């Protein structure tokens, strides 16, 4: 049982949980993920690590309520326990002094970008951050990102906050302005990552993306998360989750990401009919 220590609502449908998991936190690094199961009948779902505190033994997860499991997770409050929580899984981000780097976070993607940007800055890189969201209410962690980057630029699709436009618009400006960028990191919805890669390909700017595929075990056993990278099949759980974005077959990836759409719809409908409820572990906030 893994106790929830803190909860924040960052934006509509976007929530943050701090979870006590000392063994995971002890080894967690930027770029890795955990797999959670909210209750005994639950599914195993991967969540990217948005932050970690090794000393306090805490992992921070930020998630968007998109399916039944994340909706259910969103109802949980401090003191509640998550039945299963395993990690840190996947390979950590490759951190070294590259020189000048750009970190792009779109929507929920800002959360996993944050610890990577911080690690890159700590390694001595000049980090330009780009944060984008659909509209003002979906912008979160601007302060945290500002502290993790040497410079931060913000945009909203509808112009309700900061610049109007897409992250790719800002990215093009940054590339044109700075010229000598060594690496781009982009995390967000698949179409955003795909658009970023299309842009950076023009500039031959190496771009790393992080893929949130459908997974079951998360340890390389099932192959549910397989993705074609550079013509080869890779498992996002053990070979990733980060890959060279210019090599990723995004068309395949996006088709595979909706395999269970009808079942997810059924699950959500059933959940709504029964009335949203907190998955109780019955431990009443046991230590």
């Amino acid at each position, binding site marked *: 049982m893994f106790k929830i220590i803190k909860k924040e609502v960052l934006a509509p449908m976007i929530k943050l949980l701090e979870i006590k998991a000392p063994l995971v936190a002890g080894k967690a690094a930027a770029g890795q993920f955990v797999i959670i*199961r909210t209750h005994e009948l639950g599914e195993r779902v991967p969540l990217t690590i948005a932050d970690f505190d090794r000393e306090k033994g805490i992992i921070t997860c930020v998630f968007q309520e998109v399916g039944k499991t994340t909706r259910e997770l969103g109802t949980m409050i401090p003191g509640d326990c998550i039945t299963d929580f395993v990690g840190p*899984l996947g390979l950590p981000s490759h951190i070294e002094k590259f020189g000048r780097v750009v970190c792009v976070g779109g929507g929920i993607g800002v959360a996993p970008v944050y610890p990577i940007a911080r690690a890159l800055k700590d390694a001595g890189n000049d980090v330009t951050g780009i944060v984008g969201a659909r509209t003002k209410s979906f912008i979160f962690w601007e302060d945290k990102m500002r502290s993790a980057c040497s410079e931060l630029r913000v945009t909203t699709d509808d112009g309700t906050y900061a610049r109007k436009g897409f992250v790719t618009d800002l990215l093009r400006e940054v590339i044109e302005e700075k010229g000598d960028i060594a690496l781009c990191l982009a995390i967000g919805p698949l179409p955003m990552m795909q658009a970023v890669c299309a842009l950076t390909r023009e500039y031959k700017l190496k771009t790393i993306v992080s893929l949130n595929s459908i997974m*079951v*075990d998360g*340890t390389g056993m099932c192959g549910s998360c397989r993705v074609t990278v550079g013509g080869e099949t890779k498992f996002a759980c053990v070979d990733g989750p980060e890959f060279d974005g210019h090599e990723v077959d995004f068309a395949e990836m996006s088709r*595979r990401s909706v395999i*269970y759409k009808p079942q997810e719809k059924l699950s959500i409908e059933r959940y709504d009919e029964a009335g949203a409820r907190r998955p109780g572990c019955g431990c009443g906030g046991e230590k």
Partner: protein
Amino acid sequence: MAGDTTSGKKSIKPFKNSMPVQDPVQRAKNFKEVALGYEEEAVVDEARRCIQCKNKPCLQGCPVEIDIPAFIKMAAERDFAGAIKSIKEKNSLPAVCGRVCPQENQCEKYCTLAKKHQPVAIGRIERYVADWELSREVLIQEVEPPTGKKVAVIGSGPAGLTCAADLAKQGHSVTVFEALHVAGGVLMYGIPEFRLPKGVVQAEVNNLKKIGVKFQLNCVVGKFATVDELMEDWGFDAVFIGTGAGLPHFMKIPGENACGVYSANEFLTRTNLMKAYLFPEYDTPIRVGRKVAVLGGGNVAMDSARTALRLGAEESWIVYRRTEKEMPARREEVEHAMEEGVKFAFLTFPTKILHDEDYWVKGMECLRCELGEKDASGRRSPVPIVGSEYIMEVDTVVVAIGQGPNPLVPRTTKGLECGRKGNIIACSETGATSKAGVFAGGDVVTGAATVILAMGAGRTAAKSIHKYLSENAPERNI
């Protein structure tokens, strides 16, 4: 029912007492256990078929060295408590072995009766007495006083559970680290409920807890800690690696990443471990189409094909490149699959998976084969016939062509020697690896094999670990 014992010389019934099974038509639609188990009279009658021959040839077929005639004699006398006690001296998972061991290639193969008749149904008797005990929980296992030595067992499959049980009985403090959220490894995620009820596995796991084995679930060794850290920082005096063969192999043919193509591991894990057959009560979904092709001819392929029927597939096909004779699956599994309506396409070699514009599987291009020369495995190898391409219309494909060793622990352990296929190199006599204090056994060493061979390896390693701890590991305060 009972054998004729009135005359001085006992007449031997030529056939085994038959195993009651669920009706094939019924069972192909449910996940309940297929083989129902003997009733008491049948088990006693079967046990009496054993002639208690002096040379006990059956023993040479048992990887865990159970004193087979001894427990059968007790079963014949209805001393089931004595029988299970005798088995448990050597085998910590009898309810599992009684169900999934390939006895026809092991103990029963060497049975004296088998020369003229059917052998004694050793496995079925083992299952009966194990179930008898599980339903009563009467047996208290004796455990040696604590030695103060700590052993980490990585993986809670058959190898790990056996090793853990043997070491715990000898008084060592054993912690089993399991990556998944339940203990049991392949017994939980791989072998289907209808062949091995998960309740039986958990009952065996609970028996281990009773003798002091600790289970740390949700712990992936190589991630939260390495083997080296377990020994240096966590204070474990020895480590046993039994991480199995969990890495699924794919065909490496075009279209294999299409939606509707599963590895057998994923197909079975979703169904068994995550209980996708109870979706939406359970949250994990699975999609089985109308016509399923399972590629492969082993037990995992049979399990997948039979699972597909139970999930509602209209047709479930085994697609195998050789013939029925060369299939590595247990005969009993093949027969059960056939009875249930699984269809077989032999001498068929898939070359390409076809998909529609939404990327969903719509067919499979196959070549017909003929058998050629014998290959390294001693089986005649399939040779595709040029120009024999045809399309098999299917909407789900399950790839069950084998699994490799899970690379996570080998990759993260310093100084651990591995083979070309990623398997850990360990001495077959002792389970010792190239690294002092680290032992390994089961599928991670041999490549995918059987439950009982993994158990045998776990038992062998436990003996060596016990010896190693007695000779090498420093004394430690308990």
